[in-house]
């Protein structure tokens, strides 16, 4: 096929437009994959010397099943919810007067940075945020006043963000983490053998900054939740 090189960006545009219009996400992504592959002249199924698009789809799907393993935690969380998990979290946190959504989010972010430092790698939305951090935060907010649907959205977003902030920046604090190893490997391939410890040295200011910026944002959220709580009486 003699299409210009930049036609390959068609997949990127499909994704951007599909996400913007909130079209069926799964369909948008697969359409982008098929079209990009076809424009680049890849075959649909593997031919000698050339992996096919459907084969790549299947291979990447199999190799990334780890991203969907969290499904196994759902039965226990669901049953615990049925037997009052969220109510008990709220009851518990009502007794801890100092707890707020913002403070819990800050604490959780620090906890996740510690994970990174210890060389532990996991995504915490399923094991930590859904079953524990969110019910505790919602409980803390209830002690300060009425929690409407809008506030609940904000609390969920903040809890999820604290997971991402802690995970993304904290993980570069250990030499066994894949980010550090990736940088080391790529730079070595490009002819520069960098010191692992120097990588950690230069990521430290960014980790500290991420903690400070996170704290600013979370405490600001606390104030916003408080102000509207007072307004609503």
């Amino acid at each position, binding site marked *: 096929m003699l299409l210009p090189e930049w036609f390959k960006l068609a997949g990127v545009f499909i994704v951007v437009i599909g996400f913007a219009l909130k079209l069926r996400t799964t369909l948008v992504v697969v359409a982008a994959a098929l079209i990009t592959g076809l424009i680049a002249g890849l075959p649909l199924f593997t031919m000698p010397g050339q992996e*096919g698009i459907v084969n790549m789809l*299947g291979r990447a799907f199999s190799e990334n099943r780890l991203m969907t393993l969290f499904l196994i935690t759902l039965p226990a969380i669901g049953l615990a919810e049925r037997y009052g998990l969220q109510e008990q979290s709220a009851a518990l946190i009502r007794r801890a007067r100092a707890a707020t959504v913002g403070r819990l989010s800050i604490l959780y972010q620090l906890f996740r940075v510690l994970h990174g430092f210890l060389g532990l790698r996991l995504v915490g939305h399923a094991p930590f945020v859904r079953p524990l951090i969110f019910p505790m935060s919602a409980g803390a907010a209830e002690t300060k006043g009425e929690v409407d649907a809008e506030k609940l959205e904000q609390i969920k977003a903040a809890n999820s963000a604290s997971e991402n902030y802690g995970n993304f920046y904290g993980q570069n604090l250990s030499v066994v983490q894949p980010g550090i190893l990736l940088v080391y490997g790529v*730079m070595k391939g490009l002819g520069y053998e960098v010191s692992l410890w120097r990588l950690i040295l230069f990521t430290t200011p960014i980790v500290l900054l991420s903690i400070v910026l996170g704290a600013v944002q979370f405490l600001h959220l606390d104030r916003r939740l408080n102000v509207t709580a007072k307004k609503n009486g």
Partner: protein
Amino acid sequence: MSESWFLNLETVYAVTGAVLFVFAVMTFRDKGNRHRYGSGLFWLLLAVAFGFGGVLPHWVTGMLVLVMVGIDGLKRVSIGSYDETKHEQQVEHASRLKNKIFLPVIAIPMVTFIFALAFRIAGLDSSAVNRAALIGLVVGGIVAMILALRITGSTTRTLFQEGRRLNDAIGSLSLLPQLLASLGVIFTAAKVGNLIAGGIQSIVPENSLFLLVLANCVGMTVFTIVMGNSFAAFPVIASGVLVPLIVKPFGVDPAMVAILTLTAGSSGTLMTPMGANFNIVPTALLNMKDQYGVIKFQLPFALTIWSFHVLLMWILIKTL
């Protein structure tokens, strides 16, 4: 020990596939689901792709994925009915069980943590430690199920009904991280990254250090937004922009610019729906109304820390 069945991820995938199979059977029999056959087939195919992904030829898995996406595209994946409890009943249970109800949900992170830590201390390589955390997550899930049944005195049937309730709320979105990973593989095979790096090379003046640093960070972030993952973007930007345009001509510290380029990309991950497992799956897990709610919250943080990356990189190049 390192390659025993116990440390094999295929075992935990098979267990998860079995849970999905139970969800599928329950969905087929759920008359309260508007599209019980479509939904049931969807979860059944996912169970097969999950449990047998390691032994099926990749093109078969690929076809399974296309069928699943087709079912979802026709809007035939819907939520069911689960005999849900009233709020008052939950409050009553809470006052009876007290803090015991936390045991199962604490077991999940505890077991995950213990597995990861144990293998870290045992001094295994980092890929074994990563696997240990995943295996720990699955073992933790099973331990939690047993504890939840013990503490509540409920039935296995209710256990899986409740699991299905949460699973249906997430719906087809749980496929998304894996689909995006596939898209990344195809973008890489089509050399989309080289196109982006080439574009930057042709725009930026070669002698302006600040503009080069800016272009490097913009390129890293844009490509991360497209790929949904800074790890996929880094090799492309490092080989296409960072090393040929900054490290080599200006003789700057490669460790410093390399790690700052990587985390400049993290801002991209915080801003993109392509990073579905970080930004979209949580909105489904937490039942948020706005699919982009987490991204919107993260946006000011991401832009601020990104600007600091550009400044810090430029200042450090000037002073080191």
